């Protein structure tokens, strides 16, 4: 599903150049649930941004579902993001003036789907995350866990190939975190490929594979026995 070869990325900080990713090689097969771990500054978020086409690599190749992602202009990047990827952010990033249902329906708007169908689809995803009763509520009327579940429903709405979650539990308490991870596991069980960036070992342990990043390099890539979140709830 994802193939990355020799990926480099550096940022200019003032007059210095900060080499963040120093040659990443990394494959993800369909249906995997991978966590990317590392301390802050290890380059894990940068990697996720490149995977998410929110940022572009300086060197190296990136293939997503057989499509080479290179020299994208904004328009094509937007189309690919819409088609291939779903994002879940630490700070939820819901649009504050839209209710849960409309937030979930937004990616479908950019797919050019008509309103009626959009609403039906969005509703079914809200049901899937267990928030059908909260469809008409604005984000600030929802708890953190609920917001993140709305965000997950939104990420799923466009039926993406890969779900990218950047610290999805970073702003949540542990009980809610496990709830959210449980949802992510369930989605993975249906066969969707998911990448989770986290620095929490217990969250990483709930995935099937842990990739450890340090100073811009992968230092460890192991398959693990998945801990089911359900057991911790």
């Amino acid at each position, binding site marked *: 599903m994802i193939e990355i070869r020799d990926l480099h990325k550096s940022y200019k900080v003032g007059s210095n150049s900060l080499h963040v990713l120093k040659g990443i090689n990394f494959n993800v097969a369909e249906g995997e649930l991978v966590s990317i771990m590392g301390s802050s500054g290890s380059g894990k978020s940068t990697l996720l941004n490149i995977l998410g086409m929110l940022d572009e690599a300086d060197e190296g190749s990136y293939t997503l579902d057989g499509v080479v992602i290179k020299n994208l202009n*904004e328009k094509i990047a937007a189309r690919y*993001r819409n088609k291939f990827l779903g994002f879940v952010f630490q700070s939820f990033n819901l649009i504050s*003036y839209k209710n849960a249902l409309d937030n979930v329906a937004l990616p479908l708007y*950019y*797919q050019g789907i008509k309103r009626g169908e959009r609403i039906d689809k969005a509703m079914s995803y809200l049901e899937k995350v267990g928030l059908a009763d909260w469809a008409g509520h604005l984000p600030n009327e929802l708890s953190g866990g609920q917001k993140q579940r709305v965000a997950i429903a939104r990420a799923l709405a466009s039926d993406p190939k890969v779900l990218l979650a950047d610290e999805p539990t970073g702003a949540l308490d542990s009980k809610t975190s496990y709830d959210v991870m449980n949802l992510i596991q369930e989605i993975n069980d249906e066969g969707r490929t998911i990448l989770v960036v986290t620095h929490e070992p217990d969250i990483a342990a709930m995935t099937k594979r842990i990739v450890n990043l340090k100073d811009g390099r992968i230092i460890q890539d192991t398959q693990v026995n998945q801990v089911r979140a359900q057991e911790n709830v």
Partner: protein
Amino acid sequence: MFELERWEEIFDTIRKNKLRTFLTGLSVASGIFILVILLGIGEGMRNGISQEFQRDAANIIYVYTGVTSKEYKGLNPGRRIQMKNEDFNYTALKHQDDLEYKSSIFRIWNGIVNFGKESGSYRVEGVYPDYQFLENSGMVEGRFVNYKDHENFEKVVAIGKKVRDDLFKDGKDPLGEYVQISGINFKVIGVFTDPGGEREESLVFMPLSTAQRVFGGANNIANMAFTLEPEDNFEAALAASNYFSTEIENQLKETHTIAPEDESAVSINNSLENAKRFYDLMDMIKFFFWGVGICTIIAGVVGVSNIMLIIVKERTREIGIRKALGAEPLSIVGMVLHESIFVTAIAGFIGLIASLMLLEFVGPLIETQYISNPAVNFNVALTTVFILVIAGAIAGFFPAWRAARIKPIEALRDE
């Protein structure tokens, strides 16, 4: 740009950001409102002052004669030129299509006027009925001298208000009473008032024919006064008036054998020259209000630009989210512009309609001297709305474009 889905998305945004929409709309609507009201008042002042002007400074042309200063065709200088009825009749006939009002004047010197025991010395003149309009006199009671009086040599007089107040004590009604002028009885037929005040109201008018016959004037006249038919603008009026003045001067010089270059024999007082000041004033007022109006528009444009900048800034994160979800840059720019144009246009028209209604319904009620019938050219007002909308769109475009270019990660970066 105009598909239904986009409209739904925009109405959704507007509905859920009522305060923002309201504030944007308010600034645009108030800008337009102020501008239209300003232009309306400017127009009203122009109307008011031009009415003032028409009342006071009528384009009256006064002709009087003096003494020749140059010898001409064997005639000595120092000759007194006396205008006759023929001079007046000739001019009146020749220019009958151009003239609005016309009258010749026979002046009676030492006009002692008595009524009972009261007496006073007033200017007594024999005039044509038109003279009432040349003097801009209004009747307080009775009537002015008319053509019938003139034809029948009636011994009637119209007296000024001051004359009435002097001679008719205790509020006695002067109409039908007889006053004596140089010992001859004249019947009072009317009392007039004059915007020129007391001086112009210490006058006694009688028919020209009567004055000439009774006071031994033969067919002599002292002055002639004319007004020309009004023209559309000052330049035309001035040209017509100067042309007429020259015509009448030449004609008088010819009839009375005066050297063409003689300056003192015939004098023509053309009050339209003075009127130029009023027209200049009106132009000044016009420029002033346009200046203020343009400044208002600039202020409005700056205001709208500011609001657009803030709106885009405020929506940066939202734009980042939308981009992460697959919005193309153009669709972001389109969304921001579409919304801003929609809001400013609606607000602009609301401001326009509100101000036009105010002018329409309140305008006619304004009864001050210098403002009359304030109104505004609808096309001008409409143009300003469009200018503001387009300016708002341009002002919104650049920040929106920049926001759309920002990488989503930067827009989404946690504060």
